[in-house]
């Protein structure tokens, strides 16, 4: 008989996690847990100023500290052509500063010593002489001709502008605006935020001179990309490079880029002939590594008076820090910002974009953003919110009028994306019911009479996940497929490796569920491994929620290849032709005679002991999946808040999330992803950001200034599901990891805006800290989040 899929841990089972077995015992192997014999420890000296010429670096006292083995400076790196390295956006980034410091926290020197305490002692003895320059902390200052040029190291870089980019149909959009009854405008800053996983970044580089092999343990979400990059930068042949990404304490995009610390540790290992461990501290992580957002979003909607959107214009001004190091499909200078409004029927749209250098850490694409879809959807829902108010239309009604209807799929957006499936209106209905939308206006009015400010905010989103098919997507030329390799052993157990790299998403549990679904092998019989480039098939790693759509598809495909071969073996064992073989979960049987069959385990044994003539023995295979299209999950979030008018403090009374991510492999894990994402959304909406003072100092480089919510502040979430399978994905799944971070923030912000609507305020920038909300209430003016600039 067919096996019970839930019992064997197949798809749809809330299978308890395999990874937990070691984590709950404290037996995880995170990078700082790895100890290699003879290992040295590296500490980085970071600049205290944001913009300065370096007059001198004196490391002589550092060398004198007992236990110090090596002190590296930019000059020494430059002698080996390693002071600069290429970025994933075709720019260059300093590994150790040579001529100039370009952001506060930039790497200046490195000390390698017997233990980290000694390394820190020696770092504190390095003397750097800076000649300070004015610090640029926003893209508007960057355009001021009175401000200095940041990238004077580059040829053909006369200003602080990095790029101009545009997409869409300007003419058609201008036409739509000319015909509009109402034009709505919004002007926002999505502040700089940082993924800040609990575990910081680090590497252990171990160069073996005898064999010529370089092994690097590294906190990387994409170890194969790192291997290729190291081969290019360090000029070590690629087969002699092994990148091992161990257990990761969270990633959220922060562990995608290649950081100077990794490169320095590699050189240090080569020079000292010892393994060198570099683990950054929280300050180093917050002040220098891949951040997200920091974009000014300006937009307009052309509206017909019955509520139909005729056209959309958007202009973005992005702040990329001192080096253009965005990790995204390279063709798109501002990531997938043009996915904005993809869930609404908008006939004409035009997006223009400018990017600038500033004296801040490099990056911009990270933090559970799906390549800037967080910005795209935040803009979308804040724009929608403003437009509904400008029209005098109900928020939910305005959305439902304009959301893509079920019968419009496949739907081509104005920017050229093809969305293929969804039940957007159903999600809206489920959410409205759950939040009590119908009665809310009355409730709100009644409360206002008593001096209480209640508000409801709605946010919808769809996301282009699973980047991406090779026609359109690549990162520095490398196509974004992914892979899976499955080896079924003679006792019917299996080992699966993929090119993805889990950081808490539970791949060891969920990939096995896909194999169980396809082959009927119990999930607990399948060992899943990721992260070692010597053993894992090539993949582009895990970020942008791409793993279920791409690597997960590869897992299904390789399992099907295995099943196809097993079918031939089954036919051989049952002495019938292949056409007479039927499959049910876990076994093949003879058509018309269900009792006569063989299990998948019987086939596995036979693969090693009894294969038919002409068939290769063994039951192992791999698959590389080039997705035909992106997948498009959808979500509708509803948030109810109460604002304390006297202090500006707001509390979440209720939060309803309706997620449609297609088929759910493991419902428990899907819900965990949504709740985690909504918490980050809450954090960004309420308290969490990196800002700068007038001197260019970074505020947010430690956990006293960069605020993550605790269990006390974080609200509870009520989760609902709608399931619209993805038509092109082998198992109908769409991906979920970032949906809540993408769609969540606007729900909170729109709720607070709704609560204080009577003041006429259109916008308060995130985070909506009490003082900002209070200011809005008092003045009736918008509150901007742009960092303060010294006047005069």
């Amino acid at each position, binding site marked *: 008989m067919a096996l019970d899929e839930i019992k064997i841990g197949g798809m749809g089972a809330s299978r308890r996690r395999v990874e937990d077995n070691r984590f709950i015992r404290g037996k995880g192997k995170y990078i*700082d847990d790895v100890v290699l014999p003879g290992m040295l420890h590296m500490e980085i000296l970071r600049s205290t100023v944001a913009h300065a010429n370096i007059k001198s670096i004196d490391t002589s006292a550092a060398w004198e500290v007992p236990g110090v083995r090596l002190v590296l400076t930019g000059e020494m790196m430059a002698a080996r052509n390693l002071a600069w390295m290429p970025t994933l956006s075709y720019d260059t980034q300093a590994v150790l500063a040579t001529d100039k410091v370009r952001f506060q926290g930039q790497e200046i020197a490195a000390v390698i010593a017997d233990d980290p305490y000694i390394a820190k002692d020696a770092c504190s003895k390095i003397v750097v002489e800076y000649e300070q320059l004015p610090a640029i902390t926003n893209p508007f200052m960057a355009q001021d001709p009175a401000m200095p040029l940041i990238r004077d190291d580059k040829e053909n870089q006369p200003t602080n502008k990095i790029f101009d980019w545009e997409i869409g149909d300007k003419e058609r959009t201008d036409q739509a605006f000319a015909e509009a009854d109402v034009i709505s405008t919004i002007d926002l800053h999505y502040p700089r935020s940082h993924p800040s996983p609990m575990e910081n970044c680090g590497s252990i580089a171990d160069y073996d001179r005898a064999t010529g092999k370089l092994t690097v343990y590294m906190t990387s979400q994409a170890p194969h990309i790192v291997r290729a990059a190291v081969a290019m930068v360090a000029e070590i042949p690629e087969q002699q490079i092994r990148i091992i990404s161990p257990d990761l304490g969270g990633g959220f995009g922060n562990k995608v880029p290649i950081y100077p610390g990794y490169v320095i540790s590699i050189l240090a290992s080569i020079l000292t002939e010892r393994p060198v461990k570099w683990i950054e501290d929280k300050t180093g992580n917050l002040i220098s590594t891949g951040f997200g957002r920091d974009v000014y979003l300006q937009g307009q909607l052309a509206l017909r008076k019955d509520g139909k959107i005729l056209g959309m214009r958007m202009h973005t001004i992005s702040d990329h820090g001192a080096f253009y190091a965005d990790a995204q499909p390279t063709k798109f200078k501002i990531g997938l910002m043009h996915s904005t409004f993809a869930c609404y029927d908008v006939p004409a749209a035009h997006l223009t974009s400018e990017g600038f250098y500033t004296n801040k850490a490099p990056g911009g694409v990270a933090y559970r953003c799906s390549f800037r879809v967080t910005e795209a959807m935040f803009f979308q829902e804040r724009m929608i919110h403003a437009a509904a108010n400008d029209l005098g239309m109900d928020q939910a009604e305005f959305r439902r009028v304009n959301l893509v209807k079920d019968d419009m799929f496949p739907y081509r957006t104005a920017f050229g994306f093809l969305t293929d499936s969804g039940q957007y209106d159903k999600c809206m209905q489920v959410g409205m019911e759950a939040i009590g939308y119908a009665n809310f206006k009355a409730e709100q009015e009644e409360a206002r009479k008593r001096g209480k400010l209640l508000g409801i905010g709605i946010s919808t989103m769809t996301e282009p996940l699973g980047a991406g098919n090779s026609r359109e997507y690549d990162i520095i030329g490398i196509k974004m497929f992914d892979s899976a390799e499955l080896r079924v052993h003679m006792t019917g157990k299996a080992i699966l490796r993929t090119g993805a790299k889990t950081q*808490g998403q539970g791949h060891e549990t969920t990939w096995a569920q896909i194999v169980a679904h396809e082959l009927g092998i119990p999930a607990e019989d399948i060992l899943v491994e990721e992260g070692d480039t010597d053993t894992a098939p090539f993949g582009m790693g895990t970020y942008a929620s791409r793993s279920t759509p791409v690597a997960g598809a590869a897992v299904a495909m390789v399992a099907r290849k295995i099943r196809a071969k097993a079918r031939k073996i089954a036919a051989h064992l049952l002495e019938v032709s292949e056409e007479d073989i039927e499959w049910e979960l876990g076994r093949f049987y003879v058509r018309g005679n269900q009792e006569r069959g063989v299990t998948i385990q019987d086939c596995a044994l036979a693969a090693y002991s009894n294969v038919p003539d002409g068939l290769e023995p063994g039951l192992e295979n791999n698959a590389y999946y080039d997705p035909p299209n992106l997948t498009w999950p959808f979500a509708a979030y509803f948030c109810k808040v109460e604002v304390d008018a006297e202090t500006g403090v707001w509390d979440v009374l209720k939060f309803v999330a309706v997620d449609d991510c297609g088929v759910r492999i493991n419902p428990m894990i899907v819900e965990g992803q949504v709740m985690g994402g909504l918490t980050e959304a809450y954090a960004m909406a309420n308290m969490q950001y990196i800002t700068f003072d007038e001197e260019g100092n970074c505020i947010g480089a430690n956990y006293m200034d960069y605020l993550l919510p605790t269990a006390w502040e974080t609200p509870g979430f009520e989760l609902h599901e709608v399931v619209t399978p993805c038509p092109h994905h082998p198992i109908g799944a769409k991906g979920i990891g970032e949906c809540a971070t993408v769609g969540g923030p606007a729900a909170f912000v729109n709720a607070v805006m709704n609560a204080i609507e009577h003041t006429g305020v259109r916008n308060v920038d995130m985070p909506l800290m009490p003082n900002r909300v209070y200011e809005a209430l008092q003045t009736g003016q918008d509150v901007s989040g742009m960092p303060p600039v010294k006047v005069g």
Partner: protein
Amino acid sequence: MSSLYEVIPPAAGADVPVRRITIEVNGESRTLDVEPRLLLVHLLRQGLNLTGTHSGCDTTSCGACTVLFDGRPLKSCTMFAVMADGHKVETVEGMGSASELHPVQEGFKQEHGLQCGFCTPGMMLAAKALLERNPDPTEDEVRWALSGNLCRCTGYQNIVKSVLWAAEKMRNDQPQEA
């Protein structure tokens, strides 16, 4: 000397003052020579190879380093190892036994109270300490007790469920009153 050899460091390091301390860690008495500036978290991780206790931040904010010190939760990054001389420390490795998990550990697995696992040891020990004082906490009491432990992955909702699961199991497992 406890083994066949002891490596003598070069003379330059010889004049660093060290202190001999004895700490009971997970029920076992451990004696070491340490510099006063060594943080307790580093003693546990590097000195005793108990890497389940993690180091997350620089400002005593995150709680990933939480251990139980004489039964009370302590951020082990904010104590010098020398201060623990004569005291009892329990780490995640001391929860449960080789054959049996502590109910709190079981609860975290049953209710999906962890994702990346980095905050988990500290979170579980803080929860264990709570349940020892308050065997039947409300959701608010759980959230309050864990407000010194940051988590980035779970959003806390399942952590609360895990702790309440453990609380119920521990109440049910109590021997009946005579």
